[in-house]
């Protein structure tokens, strides 16, 4: 076949050829959009006026994408105001459990009512606030955040759905891999075998060198789970589903706090000795070092949290901005260029997806290793 020789070039050429057609249809859309926004204006009383020009529309879209959301919207048609996706259950603890579908919010355009309580989704942060029947929202002058009461929100949000999907996928993949060993006489078979080298890699290159042959076994489950969990969610984030789980601070916080807890709960005497009474340095230095070392205990997981969050968050923003540029340029050259750029960046983001999963696992293993380290330094001092 002629095409299969250069599939990449062919796809690129085909997509570039389609670009001008797309920009034509967009111009029509934009003119129509203004009208729909006016129509919406009546419904969304009390909200900020939605952006009308392409630039601010893209900005708002990116801003919404990186946040969590109460419904799973795959795409939306601005012309008709139609959303393609599905609503998710909202679970609120506010004087008793309030459960209702997020379709009640009408994508943030309406006020939802449940057992005589009124809730509204704030346009800026996507969070649920308690309100009155009219949906009044008062905003703080300095920060711009609403001052309304926030009920405890246990909703099954888009991020919860995606982590649940990732968890199910992982469970299916790895339990089938585990079963295939017994069936196939100790050799992996099926789709799960793709991941067997990664499992072995985590064991041989991450766990054993950092934790040590003696203790690594008890941390393997955590390290493997966190590696694949972060990797899968990073990769999910690159699909057009619009998921941004590992670029969500809450997710990275919960992952980092687990590493923090496991490190400190399994730490031995030697680890605490190194923090509060550093061996091998003069006594006054030990007093100075103790608070620094103690601070380090908290900084380590904090850096884990920020690193993963910032990398994925920034990746999504940059990638979406460049994709958005295509619609701003609306020209042969500019749109093609930003398509090429976003294509290259997507490949880079795949690398980042693997890299960040690896770094998170690697550093977790390093911290576990320091927690169970034996008396190396004191032995060294005797020599």
């Amino acid at each position: 076949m002629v095409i299969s020789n250069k599939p990449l070039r062919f796809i690129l050429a085909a997509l570039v050829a389609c670009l001008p057609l797309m920009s034509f249809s967009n111009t029509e859309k934009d003119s129509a959009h203004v009208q729909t926004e006016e129509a919406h204006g009546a419904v969304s009383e009390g909200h900020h006026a939605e952006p009308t020009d392409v630039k601010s529309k893209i900005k708002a879209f990116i801003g919404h994408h990186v946040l969590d959301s109460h419904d799973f919207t795959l795409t939306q048609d601005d012309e008709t105001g139609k959303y393609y996706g599905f609503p998710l259950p909202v679970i609120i603890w506010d004087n008793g459990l309030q459960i209702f579908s997020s379709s009640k919010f009408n994508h943030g355009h309406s006020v939802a009512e449940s057992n005589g309580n009124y809730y509204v989704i704030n346009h800026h942060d996507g969070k649920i606030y308690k309100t009155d029947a009219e949906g009044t929202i008062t905003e703080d002058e300095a920060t711009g955040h609403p001052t309304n009461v926030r009920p405890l929100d246990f909703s099954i949000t888009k991020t919860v759905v995606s982590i649940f999907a990732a968890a199910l996928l992982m469970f299916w993949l790895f339990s089938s891999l585990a079963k295939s060993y017994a069936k196939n006489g100790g050799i992996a078979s099926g789709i799960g075998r793709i991941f067997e080298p990664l499992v072995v890699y985590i064991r041989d290159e991450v766990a054993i060198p950092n934790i040590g042959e003696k203790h690594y076994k008890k941390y393997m489950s955590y390290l493997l789970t966190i590696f694949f969990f972060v990797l899968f969610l990073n990769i999910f984030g690159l699909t057009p589903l619009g998921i941004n789980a590992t670029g969500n601070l809450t997710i990275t916080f919960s992952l980092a706090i687990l590493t923090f807890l496991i490190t400190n709960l399994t730490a031995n005497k030697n680890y605490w000795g190194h923090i509060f009474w550093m061996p091998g340095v003069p006594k006054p230095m030990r007093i100075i070092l103790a608070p620094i070392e103690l601070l380090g205990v908290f900084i380590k997981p904090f850096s884990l949290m920020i690193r993963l969050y910032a990398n994925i968050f920034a990746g999504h923003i940059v990638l979406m901005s460049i994709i958005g540029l295509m619609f701003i340029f609306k020209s042969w050259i500019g749109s093609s260029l930003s398509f090429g750029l976003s294509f290259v960046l997507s490949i880079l983001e795949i690398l980042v997806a693997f890299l960040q999963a690896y770094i998170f696992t690697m550093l977790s293993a390093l911290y576990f290793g320091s927690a169970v380290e034996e008396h190396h330094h004191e032995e060294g001092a005797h020599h």
Partner: protein
Amino acid sequence: MEKLIYQFEFGLFFWQVLIFVGLILLLKKFAWKPILDAVNEREQGIKDALLSAENARQEMENLQADNQRILNEARAERDAMLKEAREMKEKMIADSKNEAQAQGQKMIEQAKAAIESEKNAAMAELKSQVSTLSLSIAEKLLKEELSNKESQTKLVEKMLGDVKLN
């Protein structure tokens, strides 16, 4: 920092921890433990197989060395045996030669001794014959002398002629 804290969502945190810890525990039981056990077992199996192959090779080498050694020993033994046989043969030949020589010598000696004794016996015989003859001559002479002088002389001459003939 304030912005980061604002982004924190307790409900999401709750679900994430619940799902993630549940996932760790489930995967630990149903996936990681069996996978790592199987991988370890397989690696151990490979290690064992390699080791036994190495052992078999070593054994084979030993066996070959043994065979070579036995072969060499057998060859050496054969050589030694051949050499011994040759030596024995040479010794036997030399021995028999010596013996034959000695026997021959002895026979020659014996023959010589026999000849000597025969000669001596013959000489003795001759001597006794001569003495007998001399006596008979002397007797005859005496007898002749008794008849006449002439005949006596004739007789002596005749006798002497006889002796000469003898």
